[in-house]
């Protein structure tokens, strides 16, 4: 067992746990986007950063990937951490404003505006779909390609994949297109989230007939919690 201090509370966790698991065990809320139970942690979204260390020599690190180390001190909501989270949410809103998940994150932090040039992307490259496809569905049909602002997710050379079994898992886990409309008439949807749907592994034009590969649109089947 490893003992560490989170927000002043000492906690003992199993060797191999991450700080995120330890904090969630204690009930401290840490927002996440790219993390998902059942998938290996990736550390792409940076929302889950926490402040590790003491005094002047602290660092911020993503709690989902940082292993619990004996004796470290962690703070999940220090000034630096909160400031960082707010900026990350602003950047998210600046890129992907139509995602309800991101809108909810913004409301939770009381952020109503973002100060950058507005973009409308439909992927935040969190990698959940890639890991879902590889780890849970054992297919590995999609992956990352390109670097930096050209980074994207898709099949090798954009060729329709033979490995893809059209399970829809990638769309299921996507935070940019999660929790969308609960209506069977997508036109009357509140958030218009299903208009984002861009399944990476299926070769379809966008926004065409709500680009369902199943009829009816599978988003309608997703019930809110």
């Amino acid at each position, binding site marked *: 067992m490893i003992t560490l201090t989170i927000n002043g509370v000492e906690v003992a966790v199993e060797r191999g746990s991450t700080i995120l698991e330890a904090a969630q065990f204690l009930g401290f809320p840490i927002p996440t986007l790219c993390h998902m139970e059942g998938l290996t942690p990736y550390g792409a*979204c940076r929302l889950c*950063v926490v402040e590790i260390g003491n005094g002047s020599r602290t660092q911020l690190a993503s709690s989902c990937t940082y292993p619990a180390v004996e004796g470290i001190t962690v703070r999940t909501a220090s000034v630096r951490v909160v400031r960082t989270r707010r*900026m990350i949410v602003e950047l998210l809103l*600046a890129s992907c404003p139509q995602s309800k998940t991101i809108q909810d994150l913004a409301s939770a932090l009381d952020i109503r505006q973002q100060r*950058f040039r507005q973009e409308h992307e439909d992927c*935040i490259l969190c990698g959940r779909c890639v890991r879902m496809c590889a780890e849970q569905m054992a297919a590995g049909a999609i992956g990352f390609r390109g*670097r*930096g602002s050209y*980074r994207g997710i898709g099949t090798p050379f954009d060729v329709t994949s033979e490995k893809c079994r059209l399970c829809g898992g990638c769309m299921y886990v996507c935070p940019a297109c999660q929790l969308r409309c609960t209506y069977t008439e997508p036109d009357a949807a509140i958030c218009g989230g299903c208009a984002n749907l861009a399944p990476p592994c299926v070769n379809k034009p966008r926004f065409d007939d709500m680009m369902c590969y199943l009829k009816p649109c599978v988003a309608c089947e997703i019930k809110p919690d």
Partner: protein
Amino acid sequence: MERLQSIDEFHGLCERLRVDRGADELPTIVIPAGTCGQASGANDLIRITKRTLLERGLGDRVRLRITGCHGYCQAEPSVLVEPQRTFYPRVGLDGMARIVEAVAEGRVLEDLLFADPASGRRVERQDEVPFFANQRRRLLARNEGVDPIRIFNAIERGGYATFIRLLESGRPEDVIDTLRRAGLRGRGGAGFPTWRKWQMLADQDGEQEKFLVCNADEGDPGAYMDRSLLEGNPHSILEGMLIGAFTTRSVEGVVYVRTEYPLAIKHLTIALRQARELGLLGKDILGTGFAFDVSLVRGAGAFVCGEETALMASVEGHMGEPRQRPPFPVQRGIEGRPTVINNVETWANVPVIVGEGLESRTGESTDGDRGTKIFSLVGKVANTGLVEVPMGTAIADIVYGIGGGSSSGKRIKAVQTGGPSGGCIPAARFDLPIDYDSLAAAGSIMGSGGMIVMDVDTCMVDVAKYFMNFLREESCGKCFTCRKGTQRMHEILEEISEGRGTLDQLNLLEELAEVVRDTSMCGLGQSAANPVLSTLRYFRDEYRRHVVDRRCDAFVCNHLVGAPCQAACPLGTEAWRYVAHIARGEVEEAYRVIREANPFPSVCARACDHPCEERCRAGTSGGTAVAIRALKRFITDRAAPSSYRPQRRSWPAGEPPRVAVIGAGPAGLTAAHYLSLAGCRVTVIEADAAPGGMLFCAIPSYRLPREVVRSEIDALLDENIELRCGAALGRDVTIDGLLEGGYGAVLLAMGAHKSRPLALPGEDAPGVFASIDFLKAFNIRGEQLAKGRVAVIGGGNSAIDAARTAIRQRDVESVTILYRRTRTEMPAFAEEIEAAIEEGIVLETLVAPTKIGTTNGVFSHLECMRNTLGEADASGRRRPVPTAGSEFRLELDTLIVAISEDSGVDAITPARGGRIEVTDRNTVMVDSATMLTSRYGVFAAGDVVTGPNTIVDAIAAGKRSAAMIELFLLDRPLEMRASGCLPSVYVEPPPVLEGEGADSARVETPRASVAWRRRNFAEVEVTLSPDEARREAGRCMRCDLEFTQPLQAELAKVGG
């Protein structure tokens, strides 16, 4: 080659090599042929050398050694002759053939040697050339002795010897101890203590086999020291890795080298093959059972793969993406095995340090010496290349002592260290020692050692934008904050450089930079903020200039500069526009454009210092600038000032206010004119008998004829302006009196009329004159004060004016100008200095007066000393230092002191009495934005604020103060929104004829012959002919069309 089976056989080989070389000290021609050498033509030199040696049968008398880079890239292709160490820089094809012959005959070719740029003195030995003399070339010197593709050569020079000694009788603990005492820290940038990293690897006692990695993915733009080590001495890296393997019990090594280094890859591949063949790599090395082999992995063009976890991913065949640490590579590295990654320079240091450590086992501590670091010194510096200096050397010593100072002649502003992960250090902090901690504290990092020198023509906003663009492209993209953060920071910097920035964005930039720094998973993102944060820290005013004033003072950001001639003019005169009209033969339009911006066009056409020409792109892009001033003269000679009718407005509310302007110089008269156009009633109060200020009383009439000044001033005076001459502030009027007497505002524009004294005793003796007094006496009263042998002390325009006036005076025999620095540093206009010398004035530079001598109370001689240029001071200019024993004496009759002007106590005291605050340089203090003095309602403009300055600056100040006074009188806030100065009017370019255009030669300004000039004060410069003017105007590159043509196209589409 035969594989060596034992250590004894290795020693045997060393002995044979030593014997073979023998005691002969045959002269050897060493040609550095690293990548830069080959790119400069070293291959041709090698070819010529070989051919000459063969043809002349000199092969047994002269040797040839081809090596890697020696470091003095500026001087390549260069040749070094051993053992004399004769150094020949920048050798051409003919020179090479001559050198070969000279070497065979034991001669030295004087004319091909290095020449000191200041003194011209020739230096023969490489170690005395300033670039080399101030370095400590522990690693780079080895590149001179080793042929990288011959392993026997490397062994003969001591390669692998340290490793063999360790194999024989060394212990891993001793190696670690030696490294610890030597204090070797990683040279890749992070500076982690090498001994500790190796210790951690050695302590890993699992079953997995350990890896050693050499990180040769040198990605920083402008950094290439690793490249030259790999190209020049690859065996030193291999030996370092063998020593590392011995110490940590590793069995496998990888050199991860970037694909963009083909020569390094080639030399490494050859070195690996030869080492394996010889038995120094592989299983059972030299029969000792020790096994270690190295493989080469090539990068694929990603800067991020220089980061260790991304590098490991790449070696494993995955995308170069970093991962979280802990766990660290020593615990879990490539394929999960314990791994140590060190930089090329670190590995190269290992055999040197360990070798020395084994030598000095007497306990001699090397604690104080923290080793050397190689920097790549590039940018606006005279001597670019690779520089190896001890840790802790001050930046100034590298930039000036080794680098030779600025290459452009302009002031050095900053250095950028550490590549895209680093930051900028301003010139004021060049005393900083270079080491990991001091640079980090200053906001930069040591990084891999890149050092980019920047001068005043470098825009720091552009620098930040450049690095942010690089990081944006090279970010792997995994971390949201790094990917989006670099993209957004680049976006914001782009907006700022295009004139669309806001002050809020500066704060946003800082906030965002800090978040990116804090949240990124790897070093790329964590240090991505550095270029932005360090430029904001030290150069925030440049950002403000871009955002608030919409100006780029370095003339780099295209959308803020527009046409450089217009941007450079303090008045914003559309020089490109009137030049365009001249090219089309449209004289009147041209005059209108000039006069619209400038109320003194004829004056400026003769006496302006033409900042527009300094920035003209025809000049800055390698040719010669367009003769804009001469073209202006062409137009103003053809149009009468009265032909231009400016737009007049009437005062919007009530009785027109009254404004008092003190001083009828260019600043005061300009202000009066614009205030009159705005509807005010102006009284101009001038102390001298006639208006014009310096235009009239100081600038001689051979440069600026009296009639020209008078007619231009007359055109400006109208019924709104009352001119009162012979009335001085303090004596005849007071500020209190004016303000109480119904004047709504007062403008102080008295100029700088008091000569600064030399502060030597005897300055008040008869025969010694202050230059302003001397010039005024002649220009206003016609008194010719100069007699016999005249000396003028000073180097500015005032000194030249005084000298050229003196030489025309009746009783003068000779005129000599004495200046304490060199001619290139004289502040006077170059064409003025040229004209003075043409007229027979003698220019003596590097001379300073020490004593004014009198006989019978009258000036009779001057004692002087000669100077040399000494060390550069903080601004980068070399200080004149008196040379001991160089005293000499000049017998003279007249001495004119022209070292500078002050605003003058006599003008300032009444100003002070009027409760106006004054600086300690005797100038009036104003708020630079509003031009208000410390007293409400009193403004000041021109030389009285700035000290001696140019005419066009005074006119611009007058114009601006008029606008401010108008706002003041209308009771509006004193702010002027900065407007961009982008060209907006389309002037169709005429067809350019054959032989004309920017490549053709600049027109020579026609001048009267020297003989005719000497004895009269008639104007020296003559106007261009219409044909000359048209051709000269045709040379303009039309920088405006970039901005106006698209607008024109838009209008055409809409049918406008």
